[in-house]
């Protein structure tokens, strides 16, 4: 049949175009993280954090290619719900289920995880320890969680055709749990084992403010992350050319556009709420807080972006802002120091996002996303929307197992590195800044270092002299 084969070509092309460009957008988030981190640390450590972000991407590519993808999506008839076991080094790809474009998209997600954690342990970690942890996290810890929730035979999945956990499975559409909670909890353990930066709390235990060195970079990073999130959330549909049964002109394209809308609304709400509440709490308008608020909203909506109404996204963002503010106050109380607030932001808001989905998921949308819109399938949905307790139970289980799994893997790893004394740099190095001690110089070189004439006056005088 000529027509049908042409149709398949069209379908494949459109879906690939869509997925590839989404992957590129997600990739640009790595740049967003790099800029955000660079702007939020002190100038003397900027080079270090930039390097970690570049290396994240490079190391992550290799490890995810070699075995990460296999652990996450290596599904076949004999594979188990805990870990995948096929497609090492992209063997047998492309096949009927996965194409190269899918690998590229998942790769972009994987490198984002390590990007999140790098913020928590910034300014005081040895670079070699960072390499070890980044390789382990992207190559092993994250792929296994992804396998549970996203691959078709993971035990937490919501999209399998066989039996689902509590008849529902956990709905973590784009990864509030799989990506952000994993990154946040890894950061929690890293920051906890390392302890706060020197001088973060004074002799009386009062926190000393350590400001980032460049607010422009923070805003740049935030906008780039926002830009990238349009690949992260709507892109997680993977295919755009999937019509919904029982409708005339709706399909994944409707869902994708709705996802982009909910994402935007949640982030914006969280940003505005943070702006005003921080104004009330500390008394001035702080762009850094707004940026963190916006990101918190995005992290929270990531789980349910595809299955909630736009108004619910506003609720989500509102609560996310308060979760973030509350956790920040708590962290100060507990003398927990996370230079980029990654634990509070990605961990806290990520957990809230999973719960939120269990509360507000709408039946129609859940069926569209996971059953192509068939209306006769009985499945639990959001408890506040009258969908029973199945979904929220699965969501709570997801939060607990993710926290548990990351803790039992990353906790011991950080502890071992700590005991081997290769985790944290020495106090002297920390005071001098990592850029000088490990990277051969500062990130910024001012005019005067050349010891040359600087002002136009000097320049003119010099010209006079040479002419005379």
């Amino acid at each position, binding site marked *: 049949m000529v*027509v049908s084969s042409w*149709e398949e070509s*069209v*379908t494949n092309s*459109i879906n690939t*175009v*869509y997925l590839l*460009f989404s992957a590129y*957008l997600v990739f640009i988030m790595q740049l967003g993280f790099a800029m955000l981190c660079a702007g939020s640390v*002190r*100038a*003397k450590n900027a080079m270090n954090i930039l390097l970690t972000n570049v290396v994240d991407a490079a190391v992550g590519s290799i490890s995810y290619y070699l075995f990460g993808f296999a652990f996450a999506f290596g599904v076949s008839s004999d594979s188990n719900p805990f870990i995948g076991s096929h497609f090492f080094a992209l063997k047998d790809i492309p096949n009927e289920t996965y194409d190269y474009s899918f690998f590229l998209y998942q790769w972009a997600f994987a490198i984002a995880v390590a990007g999140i954690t790098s913020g928590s342990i910034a300014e005081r970690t040895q670079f070699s320890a960072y390499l070890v942890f980044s390789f382990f996290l992207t190559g092993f810890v994250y792929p296994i969680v992804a396998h549970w929730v996203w691959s078709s035979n993971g035990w937490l999945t919501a999209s399998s055709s066989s039996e689902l956990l509590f008849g529902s499975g956990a709905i973590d559409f784009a990864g509030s749990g799989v990506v952000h909670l994993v990154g946040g909890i890894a950061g929690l353990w890293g920051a906890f084992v390392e302890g706060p930066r*020197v*001088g973060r709390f*004074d*002799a009386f235990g009062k926190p*000393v*403010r350590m*400001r*980032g*060195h*460049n*607010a*422009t970079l923070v*805003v*740049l990073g935030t*906008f*780039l992350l*926002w*830009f990238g999130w*349009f690949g992260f959330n*709507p892109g997680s549909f993977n295919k*755009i*050319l999937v*019509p919904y049964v029982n409708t005339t*002109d709706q*399909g*994944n*394209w409707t869902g*994708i*556009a709705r996802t*982009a809308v909910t994402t935007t609304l949640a982030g914006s709400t969280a940003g505005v709420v943070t702006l005003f509440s921080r104004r009330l709490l*500390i008394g*001035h*308008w*702080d*762009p850094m807080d707004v940026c963190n608020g916006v990101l918190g909203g995005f992290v929270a909506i990531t789980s349910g972006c595809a299955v909630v109404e736009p108004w619910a996204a506003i609720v989500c963002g509102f609560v996310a802002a308060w979760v973030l503010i509350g956790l920040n106050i708590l962290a100060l109380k507990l003398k927990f120091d996370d230079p980029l607030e990654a634990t509070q932001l990605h961990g806290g808001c990520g957990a809230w996002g999973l719960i939120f989905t269990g509360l507000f998921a709408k039946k129609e949308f859940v069926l569209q996303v996971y059953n192509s819109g068939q209306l006769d399938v009985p499945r639990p949905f959001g408890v506040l929307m009258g969908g029973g307790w199945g979904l929220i139970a699965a969501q709570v289980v997801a939060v607990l197992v993710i926290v548990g799994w990351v803790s039992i893997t990353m906790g011991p790893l950080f502890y071992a590195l700590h005991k081997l004394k290769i985790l944290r740099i020495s106090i002297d190095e920390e*005071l*001098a*800044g990592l850029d*000088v001690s490990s990277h051969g110089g*500062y990130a*910024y070189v*001012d*005019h*005067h*270092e050349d*010891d040359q004439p*600087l*002002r136009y006056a000097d320049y003119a005088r010099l010209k006079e002299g040479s002419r005379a």
Partner: protein
Amino acid sequence: MATLSCSASDLGPLLGGAANATAAAAYICGQFSTVSTKLSDTTYAIDTTYLLFSAYLVFAMQLDLLCFVRVLTNAVCCYLIYSAFLTGLVYPVVSHWFWSSDGWASPTRADNLLFDSGVIDFAGSGVVHLVGGVAGLMGALIEGPRIGRFDHSGRSVALRGHSASLVVLGTFLLWFGWYGFNPGSFLQIAKSYGDGANYYGQWSAIGRTAVTTTLAGCTAALTTLFGKRLLVGHWNVTDVCNGLLGGFAAITSGCSVVEPWAAIVCGFVASGVLIGCNKLAEKYKYDDPLEAAQLHGGCGTWGIIFTALFAKQKYVNEVYPGRPNRPHGLLMGGGGKLLAAHIIQILVIVGWVGVTMGLLFWLLHKFNLLRISAEDETAGMDLTRHGGFAYVYHDDENGDISQKNGFMMRKVEPTSRTPPSL
């Protein structure tokens, strides 16, 4: 998808004689409509993909704002009122007039078009740029210049933005975003023009729009570069960036209905308009940190006129179908009707935005909400309202740590010949 509709009664006679002709026809049609449904799904998917990514690009344009956050003279709360008013009321009304299918000056109206033509403001030289430019003009007029912009004798003192890298970054990102702004305004891509040549359709028009946009911006940039070189005597990167954006603002209106060579004309004149407006602004002691009024207002106005001069008949008919023999560009032999409509557009926009925004700024001014105090301004808003400067380069770590807080930082004086002890 009307072309694929199929009815069994039409098909029945064709199959002739056979006993079950009608049944067969019904079956074939059933098959056919399945295919046709799939095909229309395809169209939706393509168009949505295109539109979404274009929207992402437009969003990227916002990135540019960050470069200039620091030179805004408005206080934040005032800014909130202003932006809510502008995006919530003033702008939507204007866009309704020119873009919605029943706006009084819209070219897509069913009947009663203004001067049989309507206003061709394809992606918004008028609706977006002129509105923004006029709003900025009113704001800056009522606020007055920044402190120190003009000295006691009234001569202008150059107050430069603080980082050329950021200006270039912002300009390139805007350029990138403009590819979503102009070509994206087509909203659909899968549409054949059906004039026999199968390779030619909406997709070509979109490609052409991207090309005209590029050429107009580049010409304007080069003209500004050489023009300023002659006027001022050195090559200045900020001028080039402003010229580029001026060219883009001007071509936005006509990007889809002009030939590439006309875009070069457009960019050439736009840079002249920009330089002229800047001279004028300096003369009248008007201070706009971003040259927004000159750039978006001046070049936007030129863009609207330009479209009325150079719009090509073939393209106008393709982009706004269903009404042959529409008026088109004056210089292309299309008569003066389009020009008349466009001049009315300029007057109406300037009037509407001027009155509404002028009133708003005047009220804010009266209630003392508009401008920050003189001390705040000289110290810089970052210190007073935002808790510190945006940049902390080398804070003192070797000294006693207890002293350190957000405000204590050692600024490195570039006059010192000796490198600081680090």
